[in-house]
């Protein structure tokens, strides 16, 4: 607990304003904390607002995304009320950095890698010479296990995995305090995926970034990679805990459903389809007033749909968003586990 907090977010709410002037609340009162040297994983279904959260955390907004409320504090510095031009010059790329979901197309196709890195560095440190920047780039690439020749190439000359790793190395060229990686590996084959994950882990170890947020829709990926995990549903956080807790002892019925995909094989129930949660997430243009998961929840009660459900803090950094008590939920889960076992023995 003694580590300094690199990123603290309090009640961050942002929305898209569509062409038809509708509001889409894709990030709703999100709070989180990442300490120095730590990583946080964020998981959730497609469309639950992960990418929007990633963009919102940068503190720099452009249409159709708009800031509504909340605070972003990077290493003790509150950037929520900073002038956007100042954020761009002093924060983006230096304090907080971003790896886009489609890192494949994130590089300008007609610019050599090194020339883009020059532009990035000079945007923040205009007095740095080219030679100095080249040295910096070569050194970073070497430590991160990327061949230095990559620097002299155009993006089209790189393979998908190499392009992805180049984007990662570029994002941390100025050693940010926070790195936000939005599904950096999901478009890759398994081998490249592993390399990318390994590289991300290395970033923290070698001090290329002081903390990291890793976003993915594939939960198995987070375990063993991040220290903490947050589960998102329909723009809200529904579960928060250590990786161990979130994967092996989830509290929220949604995370429980999602985590089924990892736990079930250990019980030898590979062919039983337990993972898919029936139903679809609510439309964020018009989210339900009460619990957003109620419609798909097995344990739903009348009270669930009446009022917004607050995030229930269990202590020790753990929290979940449900009106049922920890006790009630655990009882349901053990009963179900017993039933599954019985079913398995009978079958």
């Amino acid at each position: 607990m003694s580590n300094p907090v690199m990123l603290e977010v309090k009640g961050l709410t942002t929305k898209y304003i569509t062409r038809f002037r509708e509001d889409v609340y894709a990030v709703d009162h999100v709070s989180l904390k990442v300490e120095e040297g730590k990583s946080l994983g964020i998981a959730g279904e497609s469309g639950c607002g992960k990418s929007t959260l990633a963009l919102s955390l940068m503190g720099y907004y452009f249409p159709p995304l708009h800031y509504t409320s909340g605070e972003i504090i990077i290493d003790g510095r509150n950037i929520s009320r900073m002038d956007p031009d100042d954020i761009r010059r002093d924060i983006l790329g230096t304090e907080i950095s971003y790896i886009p979901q489609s890192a494949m197309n994130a590089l300008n196709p007609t610019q050599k890698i090194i020339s883009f890195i020059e532009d990035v560095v000079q945007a923040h440190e205009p007095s740095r010479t080219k030679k100095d920047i080249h040295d910096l780039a070569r050194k970073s690439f070497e430590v991160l296990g990327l061949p230095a020749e990559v620097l002299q190439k155009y993006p089209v000359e790189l393979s998908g995995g190499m392009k992805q790793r180049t984007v990662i190395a570029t994002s941390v060229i100025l050693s940010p305090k926070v790195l936000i990686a939005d599904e950096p590996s999901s478009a890759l084959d398994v081998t490249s995926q592993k390399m990318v994950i390994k590289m991300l882990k290395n970033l923290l170890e070698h001090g290329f970034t002081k903390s990291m947020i890793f976003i993915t829709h594939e939960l198995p990926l987070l375990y063993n990679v991040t220290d903490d995990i947050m589960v998102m549903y329909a723009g809200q956080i529904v579960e928060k805990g250590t990786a161990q807790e979130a994967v092996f002892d989830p509290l929220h019925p949604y995370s429980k459903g999602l985590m089924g995909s990892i736990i079930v094989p250990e019980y030898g129930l590979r062919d039983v389809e337990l993972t898919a949660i029936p139903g679809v997430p609510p439309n964020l243009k018009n989210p339900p007033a009460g619990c957003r998961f109620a419609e798909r929840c097995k344990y739903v009660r009348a009270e669930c749909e009446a009022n917004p459900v607050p995030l229930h803090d269990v202590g020790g950094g753990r929290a979940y968003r449900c009106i049922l008590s920890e006790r009630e939920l655990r009882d349901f889960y053990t009963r179900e586990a017993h039933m599954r076992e019985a079913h398995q023995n009978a079958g």
Partner: protein
Amino acid sequence: MKGYRKYFLNKLLWFLITFVCAFLLNFILPRLMPGDPVAAIVSRLAQGMSNTTGVQAIYQQYADLFGTNKPMVEQFFIYVRNVFRGDFGFSFAQYPRTVADVIKSSIVWTAALQFPAIIVGWLIGNTLGALAAYLKGGFDKVLMPVSIFVSNFPPFGMAVILMVIFGVSLKWFPTSGGYGFDLIPSFSWSFIWSVIVHYQLPFWSIVLIAIGGQAIGMRSMSIYELNADYVKYSRFMGIKDRKIVGYVFRNAMLPQITGLALSIGTMVGGALVAEIIFSYPGLGSTILTAVRGGDYPLISATTLIITIMVLIANFVIEISYGFIDPRIKAAQSD
């Protein structure tokens, strides 16, 4: 680089094949036109002559001179030999002027009209298109319909409209010729002024259409590039908008260079309409008179010039484009 060399040789081979085919057609097609051009010349010369043998003799003399009485195949080989010596022979209709002489005096007018018109149209069009994409809103909403309207105008329509408004009604500019018909080409002020005044209508009739087409292309390329992922990523890395706009317009502009090279290549063909309507003394008007007079050597030579220019433009685009645009280079060496 090995892949590129193969690509280069492959392209070169295809351009040679295309050239040979085009060369053949340039020779054959004019000669398939109906009518006997030699007879036309003779009847012009022999006006008022009643002596049939005399007329016959003159005909024979001209047929020998132009080589039209020889078999087509033999004519062709003579033509090839002469062309490779740089000799295009006599113009039938403007005898005793040579083809080279006729072309030399008209090509200058075409180049002086077309080069600036194409480049000005390209620059203005691309700037407007880029601005429309970047500024959006009202500017875009006005520019686009106007551009689409203008670029779909048939060239003769644009020329006629300009002629009627600025030439006939307002009488600001003369409506025909490259200079006042009462002047003799020289470096006098009155001649230069006359050339400038005569230049305006044909020039703008070409420029306006070019602007429309370029603006439409540049606008959609720019919109595409502005929404590309690298724009967002560059922003989040703290790079200034001015720099990012630089990336975007460079990328949008590169494909437009193809359009520029092509319009330079097809310059002579593109000049036809404007030159004919304004009776401009360029290659376009020359082609028209050559076709009317069944002037085979002149037709073949002018169409050969067009062929060569188009082929060179295409070849240069294909070969050099990879150096300007790494996206294409990757595709070339595959």
